[in-house]
């Protein structure tokens, strides 16, 4: 770089017409400005990305697995002569939300150790109506959802043999039980 500075193309520059490194200044500035712009863009894009804590998906997965197990066990009859608990809960004269709550909490909060877990849930079931639309009906909940919970969703299709969602009891119906569950 010319320590005196100045544009070599200007006629009043005493070095005009001679080869020098003055032009290098502008090249470096251009590259630097480009780098700055790229970096700025990179930082801005990075800053607007939403990140979750690295291990969050592990506890979510564990909770989903547990909920899935609980619904599976609740839909497994004790022996060949009885229906599963979910079938009895949904297929009785009235849907027995209290029984669902009791069993779901017992199965999901029991551990092999002394202390119990603190899992809460909000459950509903969905069925198809005669006009082919679907309707979702609350089943039971242990706490009201406030929106701040970090909940996971587990579902289970249950075959129920009764008149359901204004459909006649001509054949068994599939009902989707859906549970949002979270830890206190």
């Amino acid at each position, binding site marked *: 770089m010319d320590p005196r500075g100045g544009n070599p193309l200007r006629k009043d520059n005493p070095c005009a017409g001679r080869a020098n490194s003055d032009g290098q200044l502008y090249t*470096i500035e251009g590259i630097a400005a480009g780098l700055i712009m790229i970096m700025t863009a990179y930082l801005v894009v990075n800053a607007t990305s939403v990140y979750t804590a690295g291990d969050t998906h*592990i506890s979510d997965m564990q909770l989903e697995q547990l909920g899935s197990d609980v619904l599976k066990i609740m839909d*497994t009859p004790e022996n*060949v002569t009885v229906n599963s608990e979910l079938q009895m809960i949904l297929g009785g004269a009235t849907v027995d939300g209290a029984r669902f709550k009791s069993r779901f909490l017992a*199965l999901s909060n*029991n551990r092999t150790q*002394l*202390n*119990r877990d603190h899992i809460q849930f909000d459950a509903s079931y969905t069925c198809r109506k005669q006009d082919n639309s679907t309707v979702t009906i609350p089943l039971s909940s242990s706490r009201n959802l406030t929106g701040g919970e970090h909940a996971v969703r587990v579902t289970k299709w249950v075959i129920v043999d009764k008149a359901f969602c204004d459909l006649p009891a001509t054949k068994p119906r599939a009902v989707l039980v859906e549970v949002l569950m979270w830890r206190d």
Partner: protein
Amino acid sequence: MTNDNGNLSIDFLVGFTVFILAFIWVVSMIPGLLIGLQSYSIDYDAVAYRTGVILTEDPGWPASPAWESYGDPQKFNITRFGLAISKDTPNILSQDKINRFFNISTTNPSVGFIYPDDYHQRAIFGDYPYNFKISLRDINEVRKRSVGERLPEGYGSIRRVVKIKGTSNATINESYSLSHGYIKSDNATTHVFSMLINNTKLLGDIRNPAYQIDTSREQILINITDLKSTITEFPTAVPPITRATSSISLEDMKIYKLDAGIYSNIPLPASNNPFIDGNSTRLPSFPANVNENITVKLNPQYIDSMKAQNSQIYITLQFNVTPASTFLNNTRALPDINNFDGKLSFENASTTPFIYDYNPANVTQPTLRDAILEVAVWSGNTGLESIEDLFSDDFEGSHTWIENPSSGIDWDVNFPCVGTCIRARDENVSIQRTISTIGYSSISVSFDMGASFSPGNSVAARWSPDGGTTWNILKQINDNDPEDDNTLHPFTYSLPAGADNNPAFTLGFALAGANPGDKAYIDNIVVGGMPN
């Protein structure tokens, strides 16, 4: 004057900016260098998950004969543990597999499985020397079964909810024998009693392995009781026939297999001999004197070795009764027991074998019970404490607490109870129970408690070191406390040394609420301690 001298500082600024950006870039890369260290906890969870899946959804390998049938000398042939009944029934565990899995030895490598090597190779896998603990608790039982070490502070884990398939069993007692005509009315010395296991029907009538009686996978058990009651007494006969003086000898037990119309006698190994009169070891040889009971317990590997999946199996017991009298007898043995002809004996109107089938009047059917399986994985140091459950009560069964007065206690099933819980109401009332903590220290108590009060009332959870003479409050909920919201809240407390090794340790709950409408709820009580 106009010139470009200022460009020098712009160059510096650019250079510095590039340096700073490069520096930030490098710094942002550093956490990436530590990912290998950071991911251990994630790795523990993943290994625990994998082991949990293998144990709850896989039947293990070898499948036939099943791995659980391998004795300790053959345990090296077991490739993979798995507790599921079959690959088609995830989460339904086999009681026989569970019993074998938790058959642990800490000292003798030729008896049971050794922690950690045998389990590491067959359930945890991988080269990394993880520490682990695998626990299974039948929800209706206090006792849990576990293999592994004490849990440290941090570990990866998975919890699976499963069902355990119980085994089927049958009891042939006096009333059953009478109602089914199993008592031969003629006085005779030799009597033969037979039982039929029709595998073709057992495997065909119910296809779902979760409810099937599969004799090649699960143990069957037949209890024959009240043997002497089948002897009709004639005290005036010569010699006199009385139950007290008659002797019964079990001469032999033979197994016949009917396959494609052909009967074959299958040798009975001593490992499948019956149990006599409640003895905990099998009969070593025949004949043997019997007083009242015989228990026939056939191991699944014995049935499996017969290749009798589509066969009928006849189990015959031959008795000699002295003096000659009536006795348990439902089989016409022709021409004689030592040259037993299956066709003449079993395809005979006089032979009415006991049938082991899906009729609940004959056989207690296998049922599924809820259980929890937990796998914990870590590396490095193990924990220092291992709390075991001493006592638990969720009030779903019978109630054995002392109530004072009982009029103020009821066993409620309504909100906020989960299932059944204690509800104390409307008056000053207390309940208590003494739970010996002999052999245990570091006693812990956990319970769920809630209340709905009018002003001035309270409920207290308390413990006593002297059977209820003096009480120490653990938790008291007063009117207008946050817990006075008609909801159950979980509480856990570690008790002082006075609760350790104490036969008079007593747990109690007291409601001070004499107003109608005051209610306190208690549920899910667990007392734990560390074995001395």
